[in-house]
């Protein structure tokens, strides 16, 4: 088998080369370059430590899903915060206007479905612990509600937040756990996670969003102007327990958030990126945001109210 002996190989290679070159020339890598630069900049990040992970779930569920849960909950929550929250940074009128429009659009009773990918920072993931490895999930959101179907290796985990604010997790159709804590009673780190799920909590703006500068990046628009990028970056000297940078990619015609990238931090170092990509917008049954719709009829539902002392132990407060 000597490929080069066949004259057709040269012609095939030439056609393939031209095909690949056409694709490369057509590519706008601006967004990718910007994302890589942010990742590089994080090498010097020295943000406040993220407290140890939440581990007060039932042992089996907690042991298998706690890191992933943290990632997904945090990421989902942050997306909701940015979409539905009052994210009006003072430093960029353009960005604020854009995000107001996004906020308005996503405030409608429309269900948006995102694919969520988590990529751990390779410097701080040993490549062995699958629980902290890459993961993919499908996230549905409507206003301040969400539910997510997460897959990480052999683990299939569903989690969500109902209209009444109850957060829930389920690792099988026969069992689910609901959390009913009042966010006001939780220590700060936990409250942040809860608060970002609640669009009506002013504290959210103060604690999560006030430390970020907004910057619209018109130079990064497509050639046909089909997207608008908005960066949210920590203000100099500020820190945040969960995030260092956020990138929002918005469809300027529909004001729908097409993509969201979060650069997360943990224990004072970059933790990885979470990328949301819009898959579809449609109408979903209200039931889908409720735990019971993901369980069989006779499933066991545990209701947890976390002891603050236990939580503080885990979150270092």
């Amino acid at each position: 088998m000597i490929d080069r002996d066949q004259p057709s190989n040269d012609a095939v290679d030439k056609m393939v080369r031209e095909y690949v070159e056409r694709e490369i020339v057509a590519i706008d890598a601006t967004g990718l370059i910007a994302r890589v630069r942010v990742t590089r900049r994080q090498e010097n990040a020295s943000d406040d430590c993220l407290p140890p992970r939440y581990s007060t779930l039932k042992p089996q569920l907690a042991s298998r899903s706690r890191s992933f849960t943290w990632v997904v909950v945090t990421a989902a929550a942050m997306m909701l915060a940015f979409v539905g929250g009052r994210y009006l940074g003072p430093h960029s009128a353009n960005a604020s206007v854009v995000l107001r429009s996004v906020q308005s659009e996503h405030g409608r009773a429309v269900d948006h479905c995102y694919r969520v990918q988590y990529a751990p920072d390779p410097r701080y993931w040993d490549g062995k612990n699958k629980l902290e490895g890459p993961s993919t999930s499908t996230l549905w959101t409507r206003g301040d509600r969400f539910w997510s179907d997460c897959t990480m290796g052999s683990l299939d985990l569903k989690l969500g937040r109902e209209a009444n604010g109850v957060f829930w997790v389920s690792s099988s159709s026969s069992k689910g756990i609901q959390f009913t804590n009042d966010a006001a009673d939780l220590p700060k780190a936990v409250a942040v996670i809860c608060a970002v799920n609640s669009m009506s909590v002013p504290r959210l703006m103060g604690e999560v969003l006030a430390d970020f500068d907004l910057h619209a990046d018109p130079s990064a628009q497509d050639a046909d102007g089909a997207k608008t990028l908005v960066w949210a970056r920590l203000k100099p000297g500020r820190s945040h327990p969960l995030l260092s940078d956020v990138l929002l990619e918005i469809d300027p015609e529909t004001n729908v958030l097409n993509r969201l990238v979060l650069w997360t931090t943990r224990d004072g170092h970059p933790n990885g990126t979470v990328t949301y990509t819009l898959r579809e917008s449609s109408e979903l049954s209200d039931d889908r945001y409720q735990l019971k719709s993901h369980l069989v009829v006779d499933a066991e539902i545990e209701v947890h109210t976390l002891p603050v002392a236990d939580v503080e132990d885990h979150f270092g407060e």
Partner: protein
Amino acid sequence: MTPRQSTHDPIDEWVVETSPGALGYAVTLLRNREDAEDLVHDCYSRLLAKSGEYNLPRDGKKLLYRSITNACINQTQRRSPETSLDQLQWASGEDKHALADRRTAEPIQGAILRELERAVAEAMNELPVAQRAAVELRSLGHTMVEVAEMLEVSHANARVILHRARETLAVRLQPFIEDENQ
């Protein structure tokens, strides 16, 4: 459209230089622009995390393409066989990115060129991702040793993969090859 930075930064320059090619390559393998950007970003992140161990401006491109190739193959084989509208459009040969300068081409030449572009795109899309990667890498000038390394297979296996890819493409593109040889 490439972002510029005022200070000299060899690694940043390497990223700027390699990213269009890397992204374009990943797009051809995954046939999904967004998935490709996420994947290539992850590959850059892994390499940049080891920038102290490697001379990226010198050696990084091969490492990057190896990482992308593996990630694309893994992702494609892991992905459920769902088909999006984008993929259908792609597979149908509606090449929205075709860049041949048709303004200067004669109408007939332009039509032939478009037909060829569609045929190549369709034929490439029919190949398994490993074959697609092999034939693309080879056509871009990588040696067989490099192709084998990037596919993480033996040299002999790489040759088999490449041979099958070329064979399939040659059959599919036979009319155009004959025209070219005339």
